[in-house]
């Protein structure tokens, strides 16, 4: 997968964030409401443990004659059977429990780091032995082991208990760290560090370890909770030193003095609640870490429903074309990521027309909005992506056009695949790994043609597979049993199963080798001849498009900046960007021209200056380029360009 592909396929704003914004977004997960709540709660406990006993100057062990007093101003949490102050006990208990938790977590983390990092980095036999050890400890039930170990201990002080807990609690972290280390070890920067001549120990400590911060932190917090809970359990059972005031110890005394039976809830409830709350606090922090590690978990503010299921309501669509050969028409489409005013305009007023049976190529680099366009056309945008305005009209054969963006969920389901199918670039990711090809092909038949019998479905599956050159016996194969090329063929077969009018190909061959790519392209073109569907072909590879497309639209910064027939565009590109692109790839034949490429970097959509977005990289820019946004205007028939250099200023006829 190329960088463009990644950047463009993931419906997230620009791949290269700018400094400030990115640092913020990097830690966005940690600033969520949940995480903050967790941090505040945890902070309160830490403060209570650290300073509580200093301010609440009562001796937790001091006896008094105030027996079993409910909470009062003298004893905020009430008193015990022997007149001890429960708040004082809880405060000291906070300290002790946290200490036990943190000590156990530190020990367990050190142990799991040692084992996990070594196993993951060194690999080989060391790895196998270490992971076997971790797995064995993981399978052996922890609490019974702790109970048994504690049963043998003569002294059951907090430290001893912490050591025992860490002995049983390290394996989970070790396992995760090993997996993480393995995956980081395969990353190029580790290879690069080795290639620089770094020593292994330095690589482990300075290259790998910092990248595991989130996982280490997460497993550290998890272990604290585990240790506090386990210590509480042991103390409650009387298997740990109950003369030190840990939360479990308080519960032990409360329980043995029949606190609940005598209605002394103030004695029994606070310690348990403390344990639950600190566990919750750490879990909430862990949510943030999870979201930090896996940004997909972040719940976007933009309501999921609005972007995905609700039809566009803003701005009336412009009347659709009346031309009969049109099958799909995109009119003034705007797609934003995020909400105004900070929204990123990924697709910014795109107009496109797809005629029946034609191949329309859409070329663009990362951040050009070409994949977003594909997702918008198929209404597959996920939050924070949202179609803000515009229309996408589809012409069923011989019928009135319908606006895809205004379809109800049921209409949309019926429209999808039957009329418009899509092929994504990564075949491996596009196929459901746990279902056979047959099931995955047949289920669209089941959904759209409920009347079909199983035999008919099977026959159709075999038919389309044969069509794309897949042996019929592969129908019962799982995706992982196929090569990359075969998977891509399977996807194409799947797309054709309902004979759609439009096929959207989003970088369908980028991940494949040149030879296989060529085979598959030929196959698609042959099928188009045969079946007559129209193709929207989205790619960053202009040279390929010129070969296969009838017409090409070139996108830059969310806009179409030039469109025309493939041959004309190749012969005489009019936009400086198109021209630059065409001089950016080496040719196989002909003289070796001097190739310059385009200076600068593709735009970051969040920081677009007014005027022509290409202006900063344009060698031919004139003064007005920094202020005036050029419109897409026809130059010759069927050829439109959005560049101030090619258009008279007064021309406002921007229609297709």
């Amino acid at each position: 997968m190329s960088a463009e592909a990644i950047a463009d396929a993931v419906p997230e704003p620009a791949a290269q964030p700018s400094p400030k914004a990115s640092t913020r977004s990097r830690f966005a997960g940690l600033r969520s409401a949940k995480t903050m709540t967790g941090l505040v709660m945890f902070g309160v406990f830490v403060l209570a443990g650290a300073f509580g006993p200093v301010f609440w100057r009562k001796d937790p062990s001091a006896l008094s004659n105030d027996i079993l007093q409910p909470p009062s101003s003298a004893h905020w949490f009430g008193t015990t059977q022997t007149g001890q102050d429960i708040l004082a006990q809880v405060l000291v208990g906070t300290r002790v429990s946290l200490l036990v938790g943190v000590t156990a977590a530190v020990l367990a983390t050190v142990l799991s780091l040692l084992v996990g990092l070594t196993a993951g980095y060194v690999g080989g036999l060391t790895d196998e032995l270490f992971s076997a050890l971790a797995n064995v400890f993981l399978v052996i039930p922890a609490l019974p082991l702790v109970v048994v170990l504690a049963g043998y201990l003569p002294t059951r002080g907090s430290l001893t208990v912490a050591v025992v807990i860490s002995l049983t609690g390290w394996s989970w972290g070790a396992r995760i760290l090993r997996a993480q280390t393995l995956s980081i070890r395969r990353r190029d920067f580790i290879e690069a560090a080795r290639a620089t001549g770094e020593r292994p120990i330095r690589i482990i400590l300075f290259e790998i370890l910092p990248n595991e911060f989130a996982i280490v932190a997460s497993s550290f917090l998890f272990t604290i909770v585990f240790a506090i809970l386990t210590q509480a359990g042991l103390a409650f059972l009387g298997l740990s030193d109950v003369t030190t005031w840990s939360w479990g110890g308080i519960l032990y005394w409360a329980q043995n003095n029949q606190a609940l039976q005598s209605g002394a809830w103030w004695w029994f409830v606070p310690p348990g609640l403390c344990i639950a709350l600190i566990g919750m606090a750490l879990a909430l922090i862990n949510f943030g870490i999870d979201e930090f590690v896996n940004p997909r978990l972040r719940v976007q503010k933009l309501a999921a429903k609005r972007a995905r299921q609700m039809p566009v309501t803003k701005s009336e669509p412009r009347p659709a074309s009346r031309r009969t050969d049109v099958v799909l028409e995109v009119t003034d489409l705007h797609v934003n990521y995020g909400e105004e005013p900070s929204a990123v305009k990924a697709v910014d007023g795109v107009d496109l027309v797809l005629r029946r049976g034609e191949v329309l190529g859409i070329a663009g680099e990362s951040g050009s909005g070409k994949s977003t366009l594909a997702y918008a056309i198929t209404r597959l945008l996920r939050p924070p992506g949202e179609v803000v305005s515009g229309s996408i009209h589809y012409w069923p054969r011989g019928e009135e056009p319908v606006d895809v963006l205004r379809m109800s969920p049921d209409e949309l389901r019926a429209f999808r695949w039957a009329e418009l199918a899509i092929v994504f670039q990564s075949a491996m990711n596009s196929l459901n790994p746990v279902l056979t090809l047959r099931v995955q092909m047949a289920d669209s038949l089941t959904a759209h043609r409920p009347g079909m019998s199983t035999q008919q479905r099977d026959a159709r599956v075999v038919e389309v597979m044969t069509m794309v050159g897949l042996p019929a016996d592969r129908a019962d194969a799982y995706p992982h049993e196929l090569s990359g090329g075969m998977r891509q063929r399977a996807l194409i077969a799947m797309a054709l199963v309902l004979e759609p009018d439009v096929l959207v190909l989003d970088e369908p061959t980028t991940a494949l080798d040149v030879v296989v790519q060529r085979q598959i392209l030929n196959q698609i073109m042959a099928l188009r001849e045969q079946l007559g569907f129209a193709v929207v072909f989205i790619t960053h590879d202009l040279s390929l498009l010129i070969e296969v497309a009838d017409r090409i639209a070139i996108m830059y910064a969310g806009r179409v900046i030039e469109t025309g027939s493939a041959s004309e565009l190749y012969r005489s590109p009019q936009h400086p960007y198109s021209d630059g692109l065409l001089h950016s790839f080496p040719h196989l034949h002909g003289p070796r021209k001097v190739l310059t490429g385009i200076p600068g970097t593709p735009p970051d959509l969040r920081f677009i200056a007014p005027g022509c977005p290409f202006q900063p990289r344009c060698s031919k820019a004139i003064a007005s380029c920094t202020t005036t946004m050029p419109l897409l205007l026809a130059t010759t028939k069927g050829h439109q360009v959005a560049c101030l250099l090619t258009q008279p200023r007064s021309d406002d006829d921007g229609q297709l």
Partner: protein
Amino acid sequence: MTVSSETPALEAHGLVKHFPVHRIRQRLRGRGEVVHAVDDVSLTLRSGEVTALVGESGSGKSTVARLLAGLYPLTDGTISIGGATVRATRGRLFREHVRRVQMVFQDPFGSLNPVHTIAYHLRRPLKVHGLAKNRAATRAATVELLEQVNLTPAEQYLAKYPHELSGGQLQRIAIARALAAEPKVLLADEPVSMLDVSIRLGLLNLLAGLVKSLGLAMLYITHDIASARYFATTTLVMYAGRVIEGGPSEELVQRPAHPYTQLLLASAPDPDRAGRDPELLDAGEPPSLVNPPEGCRFHPRCPHAMDICRTEAPGTTELRPGHWTRCWLYSADTEADTAQAPRPSSAASKEHLT
């Protein structure tokens, strides 16, 4: 084309790399299934020249680069630098080796550690190889490196983290880091394939300039044979772990000999070919390297395969000075058949001028 008569900067002979499939089972059973990632690869890199290694993914070209960089131990073969054989994958000897042979990776986003600053990345090789004595010297050296890769003003980049930069900028930094050790040999593993089309050329031109100005010997690994034609003096084509054809780039692209090279060229995107589908007979895929085909590894897909191709691996045949291939079609032993040698496919053989 400069042909250097001095000792090659790097010479590799008969490189073999097998990766075991399963360690434990292998130990238990005493027999190991291995991936024959690289088999009998020899190449020569000369100072001031670019050698391209072209092939599909999985053909072993990246493995060759890592073998040369000393990142993997060799299963067999020798590597010599400046005439002296090297065999070290650890310790002082290894560091001495990597000081002379540096590598640029494919993925600029992945080859820089996200938790370290740019300055850190550039400082490390200087420290590891003892090239900068003090803080000021280190800083001066890093600034100079950034300027060398046209990242100016350099100061603006030093404190940044990788995620704050674009792919093109990152790749330049990766190059700067590789240059920090003042290497003799630069191994560039698909250095531009993950970058945007519009900035690829800038980077390739930078590399070409560095090769000239610093007298580097560069191995340029790519799947894009057209770029090899533009940037490399010599091009080698790899298929399924073996180099099957090599020669001066222009010669190789215009007059491909091996059926696979011909297939590769016919498959490559070519706007000049617009509207005409190239004849493509092949629908096969590269073989498994765990059990590679006997004989010539291309024979299952080769339209010209003969009996001998299925049993014996072809030797090297020199077609013209510097242009050689490994194919029975051109072998002296099968001289009789040369008459039937395939004409390169029509699209590839005709020269199109725009």
